[in-house]
């Protein structure tokens, strides 16, 4: 099985080249420097949560990775190779898929049509509906999305969690290696959130690298293997989940440092504290 338990992460660093390494990423919009030399490492089979206050640069960072913004400075290493991503197509070609907060689903199309939108399979000139329907069904089944009754029902008839599941399934269908989720649970109720968090865990178990942006620290602590904290365009922490508690994450988000976290590693007391808090 792929490594998921947080305890193994700090002990022996996972072997092999990281999937994506960001080094010194900078991005400015006019006079405002939004990203000020951000480093981040994402590994296959790991769920990394990107947290930060509003304006910390989370959206800018994922848009830079997705090829929507070009970076001003810094390096992107994909499987150890230096790459430049100029547009979303480049990102998709590498295997990077983003599920935005608005999900980008067309309500009037059915599940299959949405999952294949823009990449329809054709036999000659005609749409190959049968093959698309089969693949969509298989992808949903492999993600254990069982609440969607029929892949031929319009997306308008789905619940929020189901829509999120369809959007995620759409992202993983294309041999993607890194799936970026922007606030996947923001608009969902309790049971719907559960569905989506389970799905996120499963993506990690399948060996995908997952980067999840979230405001909800409960969700973050539930699914993430690592937590990266962005503050005013700088990465102030990138730690294993077991090494922090939510209070120290909040401190990191707001002040950029936490007394419970030393510079070169987690203070042993912090994990103990987190257990007590929980």
């Amino acid at each position: 099985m792929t490594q998921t338990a947080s305890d193994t992460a700090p002990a022996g660093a996972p072997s092999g080249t990281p999937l994506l390494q960001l080094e010194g990423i900078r991005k400015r919009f006019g006079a405002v420097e939004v990203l000020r030399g951000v480093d981040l490492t994402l590994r296959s089979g790991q769920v990394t949560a990107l947290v930060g206050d509003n304006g910390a640069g989370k959206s800018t960072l994922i848009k830079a990775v997705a090829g929507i913004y070009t970076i001003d400075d810094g390096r992107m290493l994909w499987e150890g190779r230096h790459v430049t991503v100029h547009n979303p197509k480049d990102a998709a070609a590498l295997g990077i898929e983003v599920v935005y907060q608005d999900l980008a689903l067309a309500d009037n199309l059915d599940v299959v049509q949405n999952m294949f939108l823009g990449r329809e399979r054709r036999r000659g000139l005609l749409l190959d509906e049968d093959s698309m329907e089969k693949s969509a069904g298989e992808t949903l089944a492999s993600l254990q999305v069982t609440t969607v009754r029929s892949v031929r029902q319009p997306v308008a008839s789905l619940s929020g969690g189901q829509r999120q599941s369809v959007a995620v399934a759409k992202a993983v269908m294309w041999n993607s290696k890194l799936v970026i989720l922007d606030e996947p649970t923001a608009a969902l109720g309790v049971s719907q959130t559960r569905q989506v968090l389970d799905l996120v865990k499963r993506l990690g178990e399948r060996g995908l690298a997952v980067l999840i942006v979230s405001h909800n620290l409960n969700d973050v602590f539930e699914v993430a293997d690592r937590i990266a904290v962005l503050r005013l365009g700088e990465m102030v922490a990138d730690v294993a989940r077991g090494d922090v508690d939510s209070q120290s994450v909040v401190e990191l988000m707001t002040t950029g440092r936490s007394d419970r976290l030393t510079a070169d590693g987690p203070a042993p007391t912090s994990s103990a504290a987190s257990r007590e808090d929980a």
Partner: protein
Amino acid sequence: MADTEQTTQTSPGAEDEPAEIARLAALTATPVAVDSFADYARGWWTRVRSGDTGSLPVVIGLIILSIIFQSQNHHFLTARNLTNLIPQGAEYMLLALGIIFVLLLGEIDLSVGFVGYLGGIIMAELLKGPHAHSWWIACLACIGVTTAIGIVQGLFITILGLPSFIVTLAGYLGWQGVALLILGNGGTVPIQNHVVNDFAGGELTPTAGWIVAIVGSLLFAGVTLFGAERRRRSGLAVPPRSLTLFKIGLVAAAAIVVTIICNRNRGAAIAVRGIPWVALIIVGALALWTFVLTKLRFGRYVYAVGGNAEAARRAGVNLVVVRTTVFGIAGLMAGVAGIVAASRLESVSTSSDGGTAVLYCIAAAVIGGTSLFGGRGKAMHALLGGLVIAAIYNGMGLLGLSSGTQYVVTALVLLAAVAVDAVARRGRANAGVV
């Protein structure tokens, strides 16, 4: 706590996973266990009650209209009158087939009536005088010009980002002006070309009519059965065979009934019988645009842009190309409708009314079930809605009611259609939230 949960989850899951996935795959592949015709009918009824009414309201509306008109004037349901409905509704149906593409995008095209009118004039001018061109050159010129007009208006809308309402309102005024300039004061251009006049005025021989009806039905049956068989072989959920046969039977029955009605003698002094040519033009256009909307990637993109333009853009759909092409299609169908309208009158004159035509064709599309807000509609809606418009127009004429009354009744039917759609939409929204 979360850690222990995870470890307990992963260890037993490891062995069961393949079997579990296979089971779930089987579940998802056959999402609804439908095995009988009755189940399907019940499923359909549930959908109707939850607001997904499809074409049901318009079919019911047609039946009610027929009953009212027949009770007032027993000529309404005669073979002669029913056959007249086809050329009477043809212009609106053909225009509506093009306008449906525009409505699917959530846009509007007010110009198609006068664009078609202008096309008809261009055709008539080319057929006029001692140096008349052949009919097909005239028709191609008409369709070429109207398609080009549609594309140019589409480019204004997509490239400059102007509202389609304004651009096509300018077209509504401008092309009407151009048409009047070509015709001159009170001008009428008669059309003497027999082929062109036969589009709306001619008919197939009864034997040819039967051949067309039978070949058409067989073609539909073949395509439907082949599609179902291929789905069955791919292991996908298939509707029960009885339902497929029922659909085929329905289409064949419609073809036979129309042929029988059209083949009855409807002439007074001289015998006139046979399916009007224009019926074939309508059915051909319907088949073509249904094919484009359901089988081609372009059609899928039209629905996607209408449903969520931003999602389509992010998926790599070229919005400019899709939108401009759609306005081109509206222009193309305007040209076809213009030819048929000119053919029906065997002339073009300054008294033609492209303004009513465009409003009637939008009304036809909406009455047929196409949404004005984009993303929902079918080519078939043009035919159903056009039939309703033609039935009102025809029935009111039979009852000798004034054109004032006709407008009022058409307005009420249009309002009723939109109201039914709005109520149904609310039903869908309620049913949609699980």
